[in-house]
């Protein structure tokens, strides 16, 4: 019984934020200790009081749990205190039984008299009543404050829109909005033939990235971010990339484009701490990408070592609002399936932070699919159609549609315009990917 009292007092401590519960548990704990004191002194009404108090507290516990609309989850500590109380009851019964079968002691007058029973009963009743009063308050406190069952899953996006990752990421480390329209043209210089040389610096490191609000992923990155920097050159330029491996595993950079064998980034593995300079001519014009090509291949790509490589045609393309969208995914629990799908790494980011575009303006999306584990990915903007330039290697479009699929490693340049202002969704038409984070909004402003 002492133990049960101590447990209750400890429990009171644990519930400190809620004053009512604290009083209830502290009160019942103190009462139990007092009655335990009586039992220690072996007065005769004590076992009865013990039985009644403990029985009452157990009954109260069950009653409040059944009746209260929003009961607290059953905690182990409650089980412990209830079992100790039950034990107390059993021992009290045993004590009463043994005294009644024993010869009455001459001095104590130990048979329980009605008066003693009344005394014990009133003490016990008072403690139960006070406990009951407090627990009634405790139950009232627990009435659900928030509305029950908002239809179809409410949230910041409205009552019928529950499908979204909750919260927001720390954009000081990686800002998907900044990445969207950022191009790295490198350090420009000219060589003796008048050919433009562009120098870039890429460093591979290990870091943790946030792929959904609150969900961290241990990534391998180029220049601190996933995807890596968008390298942009004009066809015919000489591209020089000094690659340093500051990560914990060997890496390379394998480019998609024309280049000679030694610059392929496959057999020339760059060990930890080493460097390698990739040097080739940017060709053909179009939209390409680069990624690590060390085995195991799935792991090195999937952990974040990829980025976009744009080669502009010599005459350039018509002016447009240009954006880079990399369709990627993350397997956070390492079971061979992606738990997070996104465009530009963060699940549902552009859903919470819509991409602002102007009404009537030509938009050019450089769309790359680097999603691991799934055969294909898709892109579908609402309320408009686009011209698709597959791999961007022609100046004439291949397709005029509103939904395309891309295999892993495939990429297309899409050109589209929005005629009217408003919010328009864009997402993978593979609904599973859309629900798992690959969904965004275009906010068209007049």
């Amino acid at each position, binding site marked *: 019984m002492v133990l049960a009292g101590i447990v209750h007092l400890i429990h009171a401590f644990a519930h400190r934020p809620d004053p009512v519960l604290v009083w209830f548990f502290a009160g019942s704990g103190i009462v139990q200790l007092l009655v335990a004191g009586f039992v220690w002194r072996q007065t005769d009404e004590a076992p009865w009081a013990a039985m009644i108090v403990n029985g009452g507290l157990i009954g109260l516990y069950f009653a409040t749990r059944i009746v209260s609309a929003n009961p607290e989850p059953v905690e182990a500590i409650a089980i412990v205190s209830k079992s100790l109380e039950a034990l107390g009851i059993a021992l009290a019964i045993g004590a009463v039984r043994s005294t009644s079968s024993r010869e009455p002691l001459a001095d104590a007058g130990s048979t329980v008299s009605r008066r003693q029973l009344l005394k014990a009963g009133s003490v016990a009743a008072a403690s139960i009543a006070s406990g009951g009063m407090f627990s009634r308050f405790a139950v009232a406190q627990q009435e659900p404050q928030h509305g029950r069952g908002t*239809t179809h*899953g409410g949230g910041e996006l409205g009552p019928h829109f*529950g499908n*979204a990752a*909750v919260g927001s990421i720390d954009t000081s480390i990686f800002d998907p909005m900044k990445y969207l329209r950022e191009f790295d043209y490198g350090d420009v210089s000219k060589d003796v033939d008048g050919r433009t040389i562009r120098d870039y610096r890429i460093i591979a490191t290990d870091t943790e990235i946030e*792929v959904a609000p609150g969900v961290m992923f241990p990534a391998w990155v180029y220049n601190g971010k996933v995807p890596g920097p968008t390298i942009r050159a004009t066809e015919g330029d000489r591209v020089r990339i000094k690659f340093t491996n500051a990560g914990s595993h060997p890496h390379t950079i394998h480019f998609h484009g024309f280049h000679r064998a030694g610059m392929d980034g496959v057999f020339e593995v760059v060990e930890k701490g080493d460097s390698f300079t990739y040097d080739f001519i940017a060709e053909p014009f179009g939209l390409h990408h680069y990624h690590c090509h060390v085995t195991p291949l799935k792991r090195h790509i999937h952990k974040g070592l990829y980025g976009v490589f744009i080669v502009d045609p010599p005459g350039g393309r018509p002016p447009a609002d240009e954006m880079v969208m990399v369709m990627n995914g993350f397997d956070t629990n390492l079971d061979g399936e992606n738990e997070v799908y996104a465009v530009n790494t963060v699940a549902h980011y552009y859903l919470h932070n819509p991409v602002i575009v102007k009404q009537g303006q030509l938009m050019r999306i450089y769309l790359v699919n680097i999603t691991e584990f799934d055969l294909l990915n898709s892109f579908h903007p609402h309320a408009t159609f686009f011209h698709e330039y597959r791999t961007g290697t022609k100046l004439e479009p291949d397709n005029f549609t509103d939904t395309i699929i891309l295999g892993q490693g495939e990429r297309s340049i899409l050109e589209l315009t929005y005629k009217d202002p408003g919010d328009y969704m864009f997402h993978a038409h593979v609904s599973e990917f859309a629900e798992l984070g690959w969904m965004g909004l275009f906010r068209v402003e007049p």
Partner: protein
Amino acid sequence: MDGSVPGRALIETPTRSRAPRAVLALVPILLLGGLILFLTLRGPAGIFPGDFPPVEDLTVGRVDVEANQIKLVVTNGGPAPVTIAQVLVDDAYWQHTVEPSRTIERLRNATVTIPYPTVAGEPVNLLLVTSTGLTFEHTIEVATETPAVDARFLWTFALLGIYIGVIPVALGMTSIPFLRTLSPRWLLFFMAFAAGVLVFLGVETLAEALEESGELPTAFGGVGVVTVSAIGAFAVILAASRRFQARTTRDRRIAVAFAVAGGIGLHNLGEGLAVGAAYRLGEIALGAFLVIGFAIHNTTEGLGIVSILGDSKTKMKTLVALGAMAGAPTILGAWGGAFLFSPLLATVFLGIAAGAIAEVIIEVMRVVRDQAAGGLASLESLGGLAAGLVVMYATGLFVAA
């Protein structure tokens, strides 16, 4: 060293005051506390490098389903705090709230409320994603609206308890006139039959307790809960029966009958818990078939109780008490299972039931051993035991649950 007075203790322990002994008892505890303090503050002196991701364990306990809301109680049974970052419902990230906080400390709970349009009768697959990217799955087999506590449901489950608990036991007890016509050897056979019934129930309850304990968070030590409850109940009932010194054989028989009724009552409490919880989760249909099955199965239990009484005259009052003791807990169990279901409570109750039944088996077999001509290995003893087991198994086949 006083050897002069025979029968007296050779070593006299002088009485000391209590204080030094209490202090001595506290010394190892204080030292242990000091070590723990040292380790938590200073770390284990660099023995274990702390680069490994923490082991996480989340268990979903109670689930409440409504037409437009799912509520989960999640317990952290692992060694480190866990932060729930996102929730996936059927492979879709969904809006949700976590009370009181997204980070759950060790052994604490949190309630996850998800406003979601559930389709009645279809399963829901939930995935909790933590801040380290680990996922914890929970499947709601059949989305059914959790019954609200009102008079109708209380009455439904009371009725259920009466149909599968009280009535069958009472029916079993109507075999008393038949038992009274039997010879002493046959009576002992039926007593052993009762023990066989109890053995069947005891093993079944223990198995259910262990199965239920598997649903508990790891830190609670599921099997440990079962062990403590079972052995605890065993010990308490053993102590209680020791204290009750019966004077006549008849009194002893009645006492054992009450013990058997108590054991069966506890088992039925567990049975009621299981049925109530299954109904709550939509995994069971309270059809006539179920009730019939239980009626057949539990009638045997009633027979078991009265077999103990043998040919002694028993008052109707006593018989009613026995029946109530064995059957009524089903009602309490059904209420408990339907309305405040928690795997921890269920495990504890099932463990207690298993332990109580074990003790009662010993009581019954003791009577058989004392009164049978061949003791425990006699034909009536072993035959009755076997018959009890077989009949319980056979009638159990009728139970659709």
